[in-house]
């Protein structure tokens, strides 16, 4: 069974047909997807702007990250689940969409950036609570993260304009 067979099979499943053909199922799931990823991007940008030293300078960066990460992950789980359902509705359309594939690549890069940050940069953020400036590597992580998430949102929106 090739990947193409799998996509074709998925397209014909009753779940896919229901999501695709109902008037309200797709918009409902999409609304949940948007509401959840807005929380994801919002909570991530608070951290990114702190890493860049542009906001929340009164807060210790490490503490701020520990507080916000559970919010980011909970919202991400909802956004990803809703996103998976949207994909199941139109797998043939999305696997052929440049902006969908591009969004997945950007998400992967954002995840990679986050992984690198937590492994190598986060452990160095153990300064006192009043330390405003973060190391250059932390600022770079914050900048790359913001840029990638803006890209994820933009590509996501373009999917809607280039597929139907």
């Amino acid at each position, binding site marked *: 069974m090739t990947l193409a067979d799998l996509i074709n099979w998925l397209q014909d499943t009753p779940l896919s047909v229901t999501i695709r053909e109902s008037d309200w199922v797709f918009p409902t799931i999409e*609304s949940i997807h948007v*509401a959840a990823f*807005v929380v994801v991007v919002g909570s991530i940008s608070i951290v990114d702007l702190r890493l860049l030293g542009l906001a929340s300078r009164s807060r210790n960066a490490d503490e701020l990250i520990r*507080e916000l990460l559970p*919010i980011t992950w909970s919202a991400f789980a909802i956004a990803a689940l809703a996103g998976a359902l949207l994909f199941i509705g139109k797998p043939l359309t999305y696997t052929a969409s440049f902006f969908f594939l591009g969004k997945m690549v950007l998400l992967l890069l954002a995840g990679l950036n986050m992984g690198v940050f937590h492994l190598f940069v986060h452990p160095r953020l153990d300064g006192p609570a009043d330390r405003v400036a973060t190391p250059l590597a932390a600022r770079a992580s914050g900048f790359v993260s913001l840029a990638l998430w803006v890209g994820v*949102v933009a590509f996501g929106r373009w999917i809607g304009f280039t597929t139907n």
Partner: protein
Amino acid sequence: MLDQGVGARSDATEFETLAFAMLESFAAWLGRTSLSNYVASQAWVVPTVQTVHILAITVVVASAVVLSLRLLGLVERGQSVGALTIRFARPSIVAIVILALTGLLMIAGEPTRAIFRYVFWWKMALIALAIVLTSGLLAALKVQAVWEDPQAPVPPLYRVLAVGLLLIWLAVIVAGRWIGYAQGWPGSPS
């Protein structure tokens, strides 16, 4: 157009008839402006404007998330509500202005779309409610000890209001997404 519209329905109130006629002439006027023609003629403008609109709402929702979780005692425990408001109020206000401007651009690009749908007016009502509620909540918190003292308790009513506020903003997002799917009023221009 009007003879088939809401205004001509036998049970339409005078208000409905008048409001519909006003929206119709507003949409017709807006559709003739050069701004409207520009937005409609450039394929990249609408998705770009929508992307900015979504990025701006993330700022508002992130602020509502932090405020409600702070009042619930889950984040920012060492911070007074006053200090928190200073951090998040200005970005939120800037974001709301950007939301209004990008929203107007979207309406300009397709004047016959949003304003002839109930869900758009629900969204506007929810935004008004959220703004009034936020102002009221912050004004009420200002006279509480927790405005200055991070250790002071938060009265339960304020916690409920803050969570309600967050839910209203999420409802605004849902209503916004449905503008793209909802049916226009019968007889509305297209």
